[in-house]
């Protein structure tokens, strides 16, 4: 009976969505704001990657909010899982393949992550994407050798200061030019590495914060004690 009701609900939802989607003018949506942004983003912001300029300049405040959501989630996970008891059992170290693989992957992931962050305003990528890869780089080490945890105090410091750096850049704009999160510095020429004003700085702060946060988060989850029922 319950299965039937659930299928009915899901089917009904799917049907309603199909009907709505056919009503929308897909493929020719009125791209009012989007088209405007495509036209002026190059001159106004100076980043080649328009999605990054939307993310960090036009909608930078949303990005700050999103950053805070991630931070809030990491804080709650710290609250819920707490610290492990120091004499608790630890997972055994991985075998040779896992450890060697982790050692090989670490520098590669680090380079790829930094590349994606630093070139975020020129090619697809940016702070979040690169930050996740950085987090993965540090986490494979923990996967390979569970006994070596990540130093939580270092993670907290990086997290805290990277997030504050993002806000600090915004506040600098507020006090210097009068609007929060206005892109400062010279836009430069589109396509150069040093271009788009303060955008690469914001990207960097974002990448560091996301990377350290996710690394700490995943380590907390992994460190839930071995051998629990």
């Amino acid at each position, binding site marked *: 009976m319950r299965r039937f009701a659930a299928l009915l609900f899901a089917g009904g939802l*799917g049907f309603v969505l199909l009907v709505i989607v056919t009503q929308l003018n897909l493929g020719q949506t009125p791209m009012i704001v989007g088209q405007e942004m495509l036209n002026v983003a190059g001159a106004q912001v100076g980043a080649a990657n328009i999605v990054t300029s939307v993310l960090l300049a036009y909608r930078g405040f949303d990005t700050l909010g999103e950053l805070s959501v*991630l931070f809030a989630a990491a804080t709650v996970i710290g609250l819920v899982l707490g610290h492990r008891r120091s004499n608790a059992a630890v997972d055994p170290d991985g075998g040779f393949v896992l450890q060697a693989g982790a050692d090989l992957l670490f520098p590669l992931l680090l380079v790829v992550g930094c590349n994606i962050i630093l070139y975020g305003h*020129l090619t697809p990528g940016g702070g979040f994407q690169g930050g996740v890869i950085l987090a993965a780089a540090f986490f494979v080490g923990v996967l390979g050798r569970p006994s070596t945890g990540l130093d939580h105090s270092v993670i907290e410091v990086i997290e805290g200061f990277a997030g504050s750096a993002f806000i600090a850049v915004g506040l600098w704009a507020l006090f210097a030019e009068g609007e929060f999160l206005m892109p400062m510095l010279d836009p430069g020429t589109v396509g150069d590495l040093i271009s788009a004003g303060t955008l690469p700085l914001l990207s960097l702060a974002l990448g560091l914060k996301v990377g350290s946060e996710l690394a700490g*988060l995943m380590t907390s989850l992994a460190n839930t004690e071995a051998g629990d029922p």
Partner: protein
Amino acid sequence: MIHLDYVTILYVGAIGLLAIGAAGLVICNNFFRILLALVVLEAGANLLLVLMGYRGDAKAPILGFGPDGAQMVDPIPQTLVLTAIVIGVAVQALAVSILVRVFRSYGTLDIRELKARFEHDIAVEMGIEPPRGGEAPAGGRIQSSGPPNFRPPESHS
């Protein structure tokens, strides 16, 4: 003959993901599976949102990339989805951590059993009779442990 280009398949796929996720949310009896259904639901929603910015034969919104003069897709839905994905990941990670704690406290992740034990624990803590009868979960009656007894008010921390 319905014209089936690959974009239509994407739309149908996104809606299908949403329907599967919704069905899973309602059907599943294990909290972890409900969480997985939520993951599928969010994936479907993100896909549908990105598709809102689709333009036929357009290029990515990066200056100096692709053929000149071609139109670029809408950058805004891409930004929205980026934000939505990150928020979704944060909430899912949070859910997993709470699942771990629930499992440690109760030893099970079955929703019916957990609901019964929740009601029982709350009733005991409040000093009221553990619920029976109309508030029992569908499909079974809960046997409370013996006659109800009032306990003196405990000091709260």
